[in-house]
């Protein structure tokens, strides 16, 4: 199994619920200020200065994740401005024409694909190498999937968005090969666009086949999909060539939980136990109750504990509080499982066999 390598040597409980996060995390205010200074032509704050600031932020937030007690950490995506823009800037064939509206006064620089897409400079390899060198815990790499990159761009160059997605899948594949070579063992592919167009699950599946074709078996692959109607993509997604699905359920109070009970969930489940869009820190008890809901779907051996989604929109202290309580709750549930104190759900019964 790909998950045993992430169990910390000092882990006390017999059961192990892998704790991690989805990826993004609130940036320190000074990093925003540093970016503004770097963008200001009249300011002497140059590329080297900004690089140093990003390194400092990456180091700081990686350690913040470790301090919260997470088993697998990320650097909070301190170097990334946005989940599509960041990658499109590094892909040949993309250009930018200016910001477009998402909602209200929130905009993003939506790229236009104007020519054949080609792999140019690396996307995340140096980010991974830096984080892995800083971290004492294993590092996960979140990467935006090709279907979302295609869907959230203007497609000027390809006949269909599907064709563009497959071409981008080849580039994602190249990047993942580089990440694996650099030592990455846990890669999470983010495909939030699938939630808006669930009928396209076959396209996402085909993209994943292309991405994962040459990935060694000991590399853990996860797919993150959030804020959609899961009944329209389940159980089809069980056919996808990944080890784990990371889903958001806390936000709507687990109303879609039953979707995953039939047929049996055969992959590992990374289960959202705190809401990424509510500004209060859930209590340890509340999170424990949420984790028990996950045990109705999969046995503990298949369970990963995670927030619903990236935490970057929260105040930083709230983001930290959620991670800390999430870890504490997972450890408490492990202890309860060890002690046989948790009355098993149906899947739990299977696990006890």
């Amino acid at each position, binding site marked *: 199994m790909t998950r045993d390598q992430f169990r910390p040597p000092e882990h006390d409980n017999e059961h192990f619920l892998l704790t991690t996060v989805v990826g993004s995390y609130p940036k320190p205010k000074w990093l925003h200020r540093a970016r503004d200074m770097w963008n200001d032509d009249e300011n002497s704050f140059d590329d080297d200065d900004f690089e140093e600031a990003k390194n400092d932020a990456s180091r700081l937030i990686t350690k913040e994740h470790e301090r919260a007690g997470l088993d697998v950490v990320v650097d909070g995506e301190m170097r990334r401005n946005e989940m599509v823009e960041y990658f499109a800037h590094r892909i040949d064939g993309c250009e930018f*024409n*200016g*910001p*477009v*509206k998402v*909602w*209200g*006064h929130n905009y993003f620089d939506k790229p236009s694909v104007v020519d054949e897409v080609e792999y140019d400079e690396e996307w995340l390899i140096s980010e991974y190498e830096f984080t892995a060198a800083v971290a004492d815990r294993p590092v996960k790499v979140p990467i935006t999937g090709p279907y979302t990159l295609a869907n959230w761009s*203007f497609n000027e160059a390809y006949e269909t968005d599907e064709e563009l997605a497959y071409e981008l899948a080849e580039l994602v594949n190249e990047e993942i090969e580089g990440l694996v070579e650099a030592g990455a063992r846990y890669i999470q592919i983010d495909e939030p666009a699938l939630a*808006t167009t669930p009928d396209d699950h076959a396209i996402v599946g085909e993209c994943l086949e292309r991405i994962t074709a040459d990935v060694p078996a000991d590399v853990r692959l996860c797919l993150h999909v959030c804020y959609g109607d899961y009944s329209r993509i389940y159980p089809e997604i069980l056919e996808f060539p990944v080890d784990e699905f990371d889903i958001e359920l806390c936000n709507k109070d687990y109303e879609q939980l039953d979707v995953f009970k039939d047929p049996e969930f055969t992959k590992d489940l990374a289960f959202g136990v705190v809401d990424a869009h509510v500004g209060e820190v859930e209590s340890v008890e509340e999170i424990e109750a949420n984790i028990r809901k996950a045990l109705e779907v999969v046995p503990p051996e298949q369970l990963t504990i995670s927030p619903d989604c990236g935490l970057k929109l929260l105040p930083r202290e709230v983001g930290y509080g959620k991670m800390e309580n999430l870890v504490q709750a997972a450890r408490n549930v492990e202890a309860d499982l060890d002690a046989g104190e948790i009355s098993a759900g149906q899947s739990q019964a299977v696990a006890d066999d």
Partner: protein
Amino acid sequence: MTRIVSTTTGLYPLPDTAKEELSDLKGNQKEDLIGPDLDDETEAVYDRVRAELIETQADAGLNQVVEGQARWDDMLAHPLAVHEAVETRGIVRYYDNNNFYREPVVTDELTADGDVAAELDDAASQVDDGLQAVLPGPYSLADLGTDEYYGDPAEYLAAVAEFLAGEAGAFPDVETLLLLDPSLVENPPRAGYDEGEGEDAFSDAIEGEAVTDAIDTLAGAVDAEVVVYPYWGALDEKTHAHVLDADVDALGYDLVSEPDDNVYNVQEYGTTDDVALGLVDGQNTLVESPETVRERVDWFTGSTPSEEYGTVYAVPNTELFYLPENKVEAKLETLANAAHLEVTA
């Protein structure tokens, strides 16, 4: 001889300078978005933006000019979202796009409040002729909102139509009134239909005749050419027939997203003497040439039985806010030049 009139669907993106300015003035959380009580400084920015958008359209050479609807933070849901009798709640997805608006919930009686009329009054003072008003079609506006006051979907739709009619009745003189009606394609009225029921409580309860009546209510309130423009596909046959039953001067067809199904509707069931055609892609930065636009017009007129149309309104196939500012300007020129080709040909 068919006359091609170049114009737009409105809902322009804010100019880039104003994006930041307004975000700084208003904030960027949902409680900061536009409401009935804007401060003077913010209104002044919107007045300036309105003048800029009108100038951009005039510079491009469009035959008809719109106000631009820069204030419409909630896109087509705007007339409800700013209304005193409406509460705005969570952020919800805007059709099948990666865009969101505040869900407007009607909690009291809807009466005309003059919000859109005030925008047009200011625009009218800057446009000598060819001013075009843009509103959501009553069906689409009702569909984007949620009713917690009227109780009955048909009554709610009729009330939304009356509200819009009151609003339109207060407009200054306009040449045309363009009603954007994507919900007629995306979530069509289903009451009495055999297929597709059970998808949505609002559309399940609305009969086609109620859509005809709602459009008539609004069309009767203005002394202008009334154009109904559905988009993101083609109308189903029954809805197409019900819209044609309404007292409208032109029905629209989105030739970018579903050219064949739209032409089929016209071939089989006929259409109005004037038509609006969605000819340039409002959701892709690829800029079409004027010749391509002309070919699309010729293809439509050549494929449909009518010998000749009176007026073809040449428009982008969707609202314009999906595009960056520079591409909007380029597409306006394409439309204006396509109409110009007609004159010089």
